[in-house]
């Protein structure tokens, strides 16, 4: 069984690495790159929303901070891409720490609104601080990622970069979710008083998850800046947060795979619906509502449970078959 699993894992890994060589169309590759970027965002939001149930409606703030810091440092200050990327990630993390310190003492809905207010204020600042950000006109001409003299301009190079960042985020989440901290956060969602009485330091745990999430979101933003190579206050729009929330909840909150699956599903659905032109987002919303009504826990938990029962059934039936063979006196 282990052997089979290893083979499958390696095959899957090779397939993922080979994707840019299998797929010819840059458009299709672009959608996959966007799915990977959203994977970073949904995985990061999952750490707070999925585990502890704390809904951070200002998550896009960290995405925007990562994007603007990295973009502006390369464009205006002439920083190297790698340094700017790191600065973007760390600034988002620092902002996460500051905002987390201030807001995580607030409960439930209050936390929601203060985080939301922070991101809206940042959006207004980026719109109105015209000398720095050129406001709504945006910042064109942000350089592509560059390592030494080698520019990662092609879609293929960008794909590997996105894959690396997304894989790092998913790896951190996969380590964090089953850990003591992850379980403590779930306990927090189920019953905060009980968790506290069992010695869970609510505030520290939440802050850790929150800062980790903001680092990942900052990475997604910094990637976005050098991929799209144009920045406007739109990177702070509420729509990003809503899309990410959809991905986490409909994908399967609190799981490792759920948000990843959610990211791909909800990037691909609108693209597949392009033919329906104006009705596109209406159909998208109808699909979302149907998924939520019928699979309230999310797509991934449903698939996982379904495949498990299927597997069990399969094993049972083969065992039964063998038992029948044995009873009828046949030897194999």
């Amino acid at each position, binding site marked *: 069984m282990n052997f089979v699993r290893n083979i499958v894992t390696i095959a899957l890994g090779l397939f993922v690495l080979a994707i840019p060589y299998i797929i010819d169309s840059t458009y299709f590759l672009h959608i996959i790159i966007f799915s990977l970027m959203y994977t970073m965002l949904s995985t990061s939001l999952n750490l707070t929303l999925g585990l502890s149930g704390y809904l951070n409606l200002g998550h896009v703030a960290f995405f925007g901070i990562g994007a603007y810091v990295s973009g502006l440092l390369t464009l205006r200050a002439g920083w190297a891409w790698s340094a700017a990327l790191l600065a973007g990630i760390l600034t988002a993390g620092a902002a996460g720490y500051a905002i987390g310190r201030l807001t995580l003492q607030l409960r439930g809905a209050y936390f929601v*609104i203060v985080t939301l207010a922070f991101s809206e204020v940042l959006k207004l600042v980026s719109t109105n601080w015209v000398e720095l950000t050129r406001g709504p006109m945006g910042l064109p001409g942000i350089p592509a990622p560059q390592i030494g003299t080698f520019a990662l301009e092609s879609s293929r190079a960008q794909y590997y970069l996105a894959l690396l960042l997304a894989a790092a985020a998913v790896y951190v989440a996969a380590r964090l979710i089953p850990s003591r901290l992850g379980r403590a956060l779930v306990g927090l969602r189920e019953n905060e008083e009980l968790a506290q009485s069992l010695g869970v330091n609510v505030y520290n745990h939440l802050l850790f998850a929150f800062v980790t999430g903001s680092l990942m979101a900052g990475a997604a933003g910094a990637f976005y800046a050098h991929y799209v190579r144009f920045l406007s206050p739109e990177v702070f729009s509420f729509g990003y947060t809503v899309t990410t929330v959809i991905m986490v*909840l409909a994908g399967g909150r609190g799981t490792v795979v759920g948000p990843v699956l959610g990211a791909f599903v909800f990037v691909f659905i609108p693209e597949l619906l392009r033919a329906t032109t104006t009705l596109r987002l209406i159909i998208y919303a109808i699909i979302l509502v149907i998924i939520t009504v019928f699979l309230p826990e999310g797509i991934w938990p449903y698939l996982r449970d379904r495949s498990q029962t299927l597997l069990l059934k399969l094993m049972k039936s083969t065992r039964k078959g063998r038992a029948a063979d044995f009873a009828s006196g046949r030897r194999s």
Partner: protein
Amino acid sequence: MTTFAQQVVNGLIIGSTYSLMGIGLTLVFGIMRVVNFAHGEFYMLGAFIAYFSFTFMGLPFPVAVTLAVAAVMVLAWLCDQCLLRPVRDKDILVPMLILIGISIMLQNFAIVAFGSEPKTMPAPFPPTTVELGGVFISLPRLVLAGISVGVIAALSYVLKATNVGRAMRATWQDAETAALMGVNINRVYGLTFTVGCGLAAAAGSALAPIFWVYPTMGELAVLKSFAIVILGGLGSVAGAIYGGLLLGLAESLGAGYISAEYKDAVGFLVIIIVLLLRPYGLFGRRGIYG
């Protein structure tokens, strides 16, 4: 001094519609434990229905407003019965996701059906202004304030003095006990959602003659409603009223004395400061978590 008074009056009048929005949201959250993400879209639909029935069907303005509110209430009732009812016992995030879906659906339906360019309603009243002690108020704004005050008064009467209102308040305090006392919880939930969205439609249709009407107008409105509700303290109708007035005032004074570009930021900054100093809102009680 008169400019100051003028700003205050303008702020309070806009604030009164914010209060309407806030009460709608706080009712739904307090009674149903549902975060109504589609609140802004019901507000937008209210504005559009009022706009069309006034401009194209030639209905008198009060009739147009009533029609808008009634139509939105029917739609809200349908949404509740068909989509929210099946997930009543689920985690708070599940109905929220459904409402996000409804909001995207309604917004894009409006773009397809009405077009995305902003519309202005021809003035339903003569453009006269009323002078009150050196402060000028245009007639549409006065009517707006009248509608808000009237609706709020009617709602507080219903909540305080009727059986339906008592059932709603009982459910608010403790749904299980209320059910044991013979309150039909499901009907209360349906009614609450209907009334909550109706309030949003009332605000939208009342604002239609003053502001632009366009499909995405609900986005900022819903953000502001959240802000108001939290500002006043979740689960407090009085808090939502004061929260709305305060936000209107802060925006109006912020636009007048600080900067018009940062008008919306002023509101949000006030919210951040208030919540950091009083995490349970201005009128919320300590210990009641959202």
